[in-house]
């Protein structure tokens, strides 16, 4: 079981097509190459929906999809046509049932469309959309967020469930999101709809990841800290969940892009699952 971290910046689908030599295009290609070496049977994705799959009429803190397939994006992402992505219903059901047994009250989703936060990564990593993906949703955008410790522990439980699953699956665990980012809030840059307000936090997170100091990062990523960084900083919870699932390893590849406030990484993909 290996892990990947990628951003899901909506306009990258257009921008990186025009800039194939850019740092972000190189990073996506590097992660994709390593992911292809693992040849995953399934991707389990920790994702923060952006109020598109779910809304404030019914907003789960944690949820898992147990479906044969799902579609997306459902939020008008530039450069992306709607695609249907296969899923792995049995594994989704196991994560729901065993997860609840283990004390993680995951909402069950049996029909869904997802937004750019899953479809942008797939556009770059599995452009044929042939690898089944099981989405596990973590509320990282609407306070109060689950605690970092809780998200990390959920990841650990999901990792155990995947390893105990009767079918022998090669699994990649994907975390998607940013580390230092504000979108549409008061800390956007002048004239822009986004900003990267706290570069020091980004540097700190990258340092902790490189050192494999996940436990310390979990302790530091308090609700107050994440809220002070930016309104998208809660997407770190998906990264912490992924690290919990794969066992808090050090990254084999980690490249931050400070300008955008996000990073690309791979963990244990070379171990053959």
């Amino acid at each position, binding site marked *: 079981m290996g892990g990947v971290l990628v951003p899901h910046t909506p306009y990258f689908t257009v921008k990186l097509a025009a800039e194939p030599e850019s740092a972000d295009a190189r990073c996506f290609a590097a992660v994709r190459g390593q992911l292809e070496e693992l040849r995953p049977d399934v991707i389990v994705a920790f994702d923060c929906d952006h*109020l598109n799959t779910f809304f*404030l009429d019914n907003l789960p803190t944690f949820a898992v999809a147990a479906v044969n397939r799902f579609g997306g994006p459902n939020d008008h992402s530039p450069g992306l046509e709607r695609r249907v992505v296969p899923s792995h219903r049995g594994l989704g059901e196991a994560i729901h049932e065993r997860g609840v047994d283990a004390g993680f009250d995951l909402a069950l989703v049996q029909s869904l469309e997802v937004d750019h936060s899953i479809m942008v990564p797939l556009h770059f990593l599995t452009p044929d959309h042939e690898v089944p993906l099981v989405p596990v949703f973590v509320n990282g955008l609407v*306070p109060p967020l689950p605690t970092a410790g809780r998200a990390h522990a959920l990841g650990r439980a999901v990792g155990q469930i995947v390893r105990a699953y009767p079918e022998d699956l090669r699994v990649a665990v994907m975390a998607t999101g940013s580390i230092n980012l504000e979108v*549409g*809030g*008061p*800390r*956007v840059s002048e004239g822009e709809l986004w900003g990267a307000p706290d570069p020091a936090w980004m540097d700190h997170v990258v340092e902790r990841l490189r050192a494999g100091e996940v436990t310390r990062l979990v302790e530091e990523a308090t*609700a107050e800290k994440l809220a002070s960084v930016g*309104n998208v900083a809660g997407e770190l919870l998906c990264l912490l969940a992924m690290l919990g699932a794969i066992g808090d390893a050090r990254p084999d590849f980690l490249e931050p892009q400070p300008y955008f406030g996000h990073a690309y990484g791979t963990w244990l993909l070379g171990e053959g699952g």
Partner: protein
Amino acid sequence: MSTYGVNSVGRRVVHDPAFRELLRADPEAALDELELTDEERAALMAGDVTTLYRLGAHEYLLVSIALHGALGLDPKLFSERIRAAGPRRARPA
């Protein structure tokens, strides 16, 4: 989070094409469908995202209104107004 009516504008502008068109063509009629306070309604009609944010609307939903060019908002104007709001507490009081 309260302000469900305001948030649902940002939701429906993305997911409900008929509402999106009505909001652009006749915002008063579009807002008539929603449960809003007078203050929320006035701020929406004015594209006053500074006030809407302070009232507790989620910025992801507000930015969708600007991205779809409704309520007189465009990205540049949105940026200017939301920057004027100043950060909100992590949890609404």
